[in-house]
């Protein structure tokens, strides 16, 4: 049997590496946690700024009227395409409420901006069921399970609260976690359509945790 063992070991070890798990697109991300007047979180706002190479790639050919610049409607077409196409990828957004992966609606307010050679795609992802963070823990992360795209929060102001956020609420940003070996490929194990319930604990991507101190509700 040793030969068989050798063979299996080889095959097992080499196969995962066969997948192209290294990034070719880099995204700087900002996100906002949007509170309603009643202090309930109803959506997460997302802003992705792409690296210059991908920005050039993505905008190549969108200048339909050939006026050498990207008009508002040309950029809007691109934003709408993204909003539509990213559905199958869960918009690369993994939101957990009460420890379970939450359903979201279709993105709203999708918009694309092109500035200084970089494309930024902005959208708002509504929670199917708005959540009161005082009673239900909310966490989220944005990453590409195939790690073709590297998504990381910007150094400053990566996360903001908007709307009537109760004073007791705060967020903690867990940075990219190098303690998780294979992190960077880890996400490969997350199935895009049927993710496990523990996605955010197993990912090495940056995770935003929202907590509101108990008993200090306004």
């Amino acid at each position, binding site marked *: 049997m*040793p*030969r068989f*063992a*050798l*063979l299996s*070991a*080889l*095959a097992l*070890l*080499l*196969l*995962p*590496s*066969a*997948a*192209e*798990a*290294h*990034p*070719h*697109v*880099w995204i700087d991300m900002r996100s906002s946690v949007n509170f309603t007047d009643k202090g309930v979180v109803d959506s997460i706002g997302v802003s992705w700024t792409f*690296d*210059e*190479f*991908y920005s*050039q*790639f*993505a905008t*190549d*050919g969108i200048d339909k009227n050939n006026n050498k610049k990207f008009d508002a409607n040309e950029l809007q077409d*691109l934003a709408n*395409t*993204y909003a539509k*196409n*990213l559905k199958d*990828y869960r918009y690369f957004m993994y939101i957990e409420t009460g420890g379970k992966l939450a359903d979201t609606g279709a993105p709203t307010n999708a918009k694309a901006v092109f500035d200084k*050679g970089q494309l930024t*795609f902005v959208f708002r992802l509504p929670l199917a069921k708005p959540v009161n963070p005082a009673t239900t823990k909310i966490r989220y992360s944005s990453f*590409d399970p*195939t790690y*073709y*795209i*590297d998504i990381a929060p910007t150094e400053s102001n990566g996360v903001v609260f908007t709307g009537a956020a109760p004073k007791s609420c705060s967020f903690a940003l867990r940075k*990219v976690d*190098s*303690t*998780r*070996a*294979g*992190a*960077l*490929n*880890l996400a*490969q*194990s997350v199935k895009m359509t049927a993710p496990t319930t*523990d996605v955010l*604990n*197993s990912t*090495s991507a940056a995770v935003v945790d929202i907590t509101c101190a108990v008993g200090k509700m306004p």
Partner: protein
Amino acid sequence: MTRTSALAVLVVLLLASAAGAQPLPMPPSPGDAPLEPSWWGSLLAYVQHVQGDLYRGLAKAVHAVKDEGSFRAAFWLLGLSFFYGVVHAAGPGHGKAVIAAYLVGNERAVRRGIILSFLSAATQGVTAISAVGILAALLGFISREVADVATVLEMASYAMIAGIGGYLVVQTVRSIIAGRDTHAHHHAHDRTHDHDDHHHEHEHDRTLVAPEDDTSWRKGFAVVAAVGMRPCMGAVLVLLFALAQGVFFFGVLATAAMSLGTAITVAVLAVLASGARNIALRLAGTMDGWLLWTYWGLSLTGGLILLIMGLALLAAPPIAPLPGAG
């Protein structure tokens, strides 16, 4: 044999790590106990971090070349590209696994492993330059269309990898059958058979001399073609960017520098793969009779891995979810 296998598995483990394979998945630790940072995880994270910085730096360097047009700017671009190639290739892909599997199964000479690594990296660079140069620069394809063509090339590459694997498996099985026949007939094998009959010679002189004949070189070139047919998306993106900035020529130079960097990383792995194989065979060589079986085992393994890998890659959903690229 047990010792040999154990050693071979160990070396292969190291190899696979070098190839960027993820360590075996670990169950999540109970509770919130902080995990000890593993050196491998930290290294990977660091490499990815450096890679991201280098990539962003590359865009700035292309701008600098365009705006300043100075030697300094060009030199900076080439230097960054080179290091980007070294680091980028440290991740999975770039045919490292393919070359390693091929070498473990079929190659004895370290020198040839290095040559194959450089050739495959160079071919990848040439493919990227040709794809962008011909399709985008000459024929006016937009970026997305170039990427579509790259996807087709990718599929062809995977099919070829599976094909090479299948060929190696069939060839090894035939050698095994022929070898047993030969044994029964007192080595009365026909030298005019050309299907790598050199295995039989090991029975005579107990040395492993795989003659560097045309057949092995042809197999090596097939591997180079299979790997190199698939352009590196990183290089394609840089070339398209340089083209859009009007400095395509510098994009070509940057790609060449990137390929050189990639080649060095892949060559290191090739040396490890050849070394692993040679050590395994040498150990096996001290045990009568098992030498040939180890040789065949390794050949079969290499072939099977290529076959499985090629098929798995073909069957996998297209990996490039470039948002909106469709």
